């Protein structure tokens, strides 16, 4: 409670000061609606929570930041060094950084924080760190149990925002709910779970990363994040002034948004792929020719042009295009080719019947096509259904909720599915294609010795990032050659805002809309 009172006082003074200076006393506030994918967070405790939203990044700073081009930038760590064998990492920390409760951020803060991950769902993030050594007040060394080329990626994630150790221990389970202490540009003022989060400016803030123009305290004195479950409702809120910034606008809305005079849309490169996994154990997809034909039936360009109004990019392999591992042999990319698809099916013994559905040995080419509820997939699935009909494949759609569909996968009751992932790291390949996770997440139900070997090499034997890239690229290419899925669409992240209320920098730096962008947002005159 102490924290809240203090911050309220501070924000009140700030508001008065602003009022004195400028005669046009605009309220230095903004209301932001979360994207549908980041709803339902019940805590701002980055260490223990399994679900964090973008407001988390405003409360806590990270050691490093990642930009849209996947490069790493210093933040609370000014520089870092990896030992040649990959068995230790040394980070130099920024000077003069303080937590919201006034305590100093230093090497000990990091040493106190890393062990907190033990026995949490997030422990895997620091699993490779054996020990944390305080070298001096502003130098910290991670002693590794194995090389971890992915360490920087982990450190840049929301889950590795650094909490104030004293407050963390003191508040216990309430940390992140009734109060939170970090070094970020905003302080948690009020958190109504499932409804809204109010953050107030940290006036002492002077340690922004180089992803922000503004290196001082934020322009906005207060930011309110709202949870709006339905996307069309959120859109209406933007239109009627209930929110100023909308994160994650569905592509369907872009056209109407662009027609609104006071709304601007910024498109960020997306961090995920929508695709159609193929269950290789379920006939007829045990035949690689049928799998390949299925992939060739999908016209990614037409889908982007029609249901996505040309926004976003067609996906031709499994990884987002900004990752170097996505740059595979062009022959392996999956591209629309109806003639080849038909030829392959004919080759496989599937003959077109009079009702437009192929038949083989009296069996119709009729398959189950699953998807999850939520507008983003249902429309895509229906178009996929129509495109599969063009090669004589009848697809019967069932829409499940996310938990039930996972059960269907685990029970191996599926054939085709339309789904998506959001992850900007090539280890997603291990997640979806490792033989250890058949059913879910390995929806393709695929496992073979060569695949597992390439997976092991990529996951465990990469000593540094160059090696890691090469290993994952090889794994990726092998997966593509097996026709385990059909890549469809690489969405953009669309951020819409009310130009009468705020100015948002364009382009947005970083992989996602986070603190670095909020720091630069100003109130419109």
């Amino acid at each position, binding site marked *: 409670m102490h924290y809240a009172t203090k911050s309220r006082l501070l924000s009140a003074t700030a508001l008065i000061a602003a009022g004195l200076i400028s005669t046009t006393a605009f309220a230095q506030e903004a209301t932001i609606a979360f994207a549908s994918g980041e709803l339902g967070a019940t805590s701002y405790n980055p260490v223990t929570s399994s679900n964090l939203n973008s407001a988390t990044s405003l409360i806590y700073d990270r050691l490093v930041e990642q930009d849209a081009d996947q490069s790493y930038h210093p933040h609370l760590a000014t520089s870092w060094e990896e030992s040649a064998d990959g068995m230790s990492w040394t980070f130099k920390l920024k000077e003069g950084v303080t937590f919201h409760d006034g305590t100093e951020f230093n090497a000990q803060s990091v040493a106190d924080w890393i062990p907190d991950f033990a026995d949490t769902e997030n422990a895997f993030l620091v699993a490779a760190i054996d020990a944390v050594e305080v070298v001096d007040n502003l130098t910290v060394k991670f002693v590794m149990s194995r090389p971890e080329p992915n360490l920087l990626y982990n450190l840049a994630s929301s889950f590795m925002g650094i909490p104030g150790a004293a407050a963390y221990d003191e508040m216990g389970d309430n940390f992140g709910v009734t109060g939170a202490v970090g070094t970020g540009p905003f302080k948690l003022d009020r958190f109504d779970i499932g409804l809204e989060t109010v953050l107030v400016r940290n006036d002492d803030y002077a340690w922004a990363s180089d992803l922000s123009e503004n290196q001082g305290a934020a322009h906005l004195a207060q930011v309110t994040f709202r949870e709006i479950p*339905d*996307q*069309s409702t959120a*859109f*209406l809120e933007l239109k009627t002034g209930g929110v100023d910034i909308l994160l994650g606008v*569905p592509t*369907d*809305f872009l*056209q*109407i948004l662009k027609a609104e005079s006071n709304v601007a849309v910024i498109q960020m490169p997306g961090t995920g792929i929508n695709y159609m996994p193929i269950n290789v154990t379920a006939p007829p997809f045990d035949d690689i020719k049928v799998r390949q034909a299925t992939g060739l039936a999908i016209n990614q360009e*037409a889908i982007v042009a*029609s*249901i996505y109004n040309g926004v976003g990019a067609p996906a031709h392999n499994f990884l987002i295009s900004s990752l170097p591992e996505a740059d595979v042999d062009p022959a392996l990319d999956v591209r629309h080719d109806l003639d080849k698809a038909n030829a392959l099916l004919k080759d496989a013994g599937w003959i077109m019947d009079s009702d437009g559905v192929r038949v083989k040995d009296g069996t119709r080419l009729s398959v189950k096509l699953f998807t999850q*509820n*939520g*507008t983003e997939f*249902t*429309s895509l*699935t*229906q*178009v996929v*259904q*129509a495109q599969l009909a063009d090669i004589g494949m009848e697809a*019967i*759609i*069932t*829409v*499940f*909720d996310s938990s*039930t569909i996972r059960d269907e996968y685990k029970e191996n009751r599926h054939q085709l599915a339309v789904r998506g992932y959001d992850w900007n790291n090539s280890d997603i390949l291990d997640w979806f294609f490792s033989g250890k996770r058949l059913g879910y997440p390995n929806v393709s139900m695929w496992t073979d010795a060569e695949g597992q070997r390439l997976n092991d090499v990529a996951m465990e034997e990469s000593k540094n990032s160059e090696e890691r890239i090469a290993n994952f690229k090889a794994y990726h290419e092998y997966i593509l050659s097996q026709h385990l899925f059909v890549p469809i669409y690489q969405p953009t992240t669309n951020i819409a805002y009310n130009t009468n209320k705020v100015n948002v920098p364009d382009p947005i730096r970083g992989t996602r809309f986070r603190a670095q962008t909020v720091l630069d947002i100003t109130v419109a005159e």
Partner: protein
Amino acid sequence: MSSMTGIAARWMAGYRGTPVSRAFGSWLGKIAGGFLVLLVLTAIFAPWITPFDYAAQDLTNGNAPPGWPHLLGTDQFGRDVLSRVIYGARTSLSVSATAIAISITAGMTLGAAAGYFGGFFERAVMTVVDLTWSFPDILIALIFVAIIGPGLTSTTFAIAIAYLAQFTRLTRAQIVRLKRETFIEATINLGAKPHHILLKHLLPNAIAPVIVVGMLAIGDGIVLEATLGFFGLGAQPPTPSWGAMMSSGTAQLFLSPWVIIFPGVVVAVTVIAVNLFGDELIRALDIRDRIRGS
């Protein structure tokens, strides 16, 4: 019954003809009944009536406003809204009617058994039934669909289960009332077998109110189907149902309001017609007291 109002009521009622023809008697009953007949015919003959294939996508002509040739416009996939509304009648009516038929059958069995045998069995059944009866039907249906998965079959059963309590209560109340009547007592005293009494005497006498309430419940069933469809749990694409159409329409509230307005209007009008006709039927059968007695 020499009380004034009683006599007057009987005079006014005008007892003539079969209940159904009497229900058709009033002008409201005529309109409502006529609409329902038309709707059922539309549903049956949907393939011959629809101007377009309900599933045919035309992505270049998505979200077209009402006009020619798409009288009620098109949805985001360029599918004809009118054709989908017509086919939706098929889905919505058949799901709701099947669900209520299942519900009536199960409810009558349970209610008759509870009412006839009484004792602990009745108590146990009625405790559960009363509880589910006062539970929101949408929650019962949502939980049920969560257990057995989405689709038309599970929607049908979900609706059936949501309204099971209603018919169980109603049947039980009828049976309990009838059991007290002398002709049944006489039959029981004569040593007739339980199933004989139930089937030959009790159920036939209890059936009229149950059927009428069932008729009204079809209206509720349509709304529940629409709500489940709205949550995306009912008919699976591309099968059109009124609720599912509105669900795909929410995202389109602005782009193409007709996609949600028309199915909604049809649902509302249908349910109103069902209610009006049901009310007329109740009046014609003069069973209002028996229905409310449950």
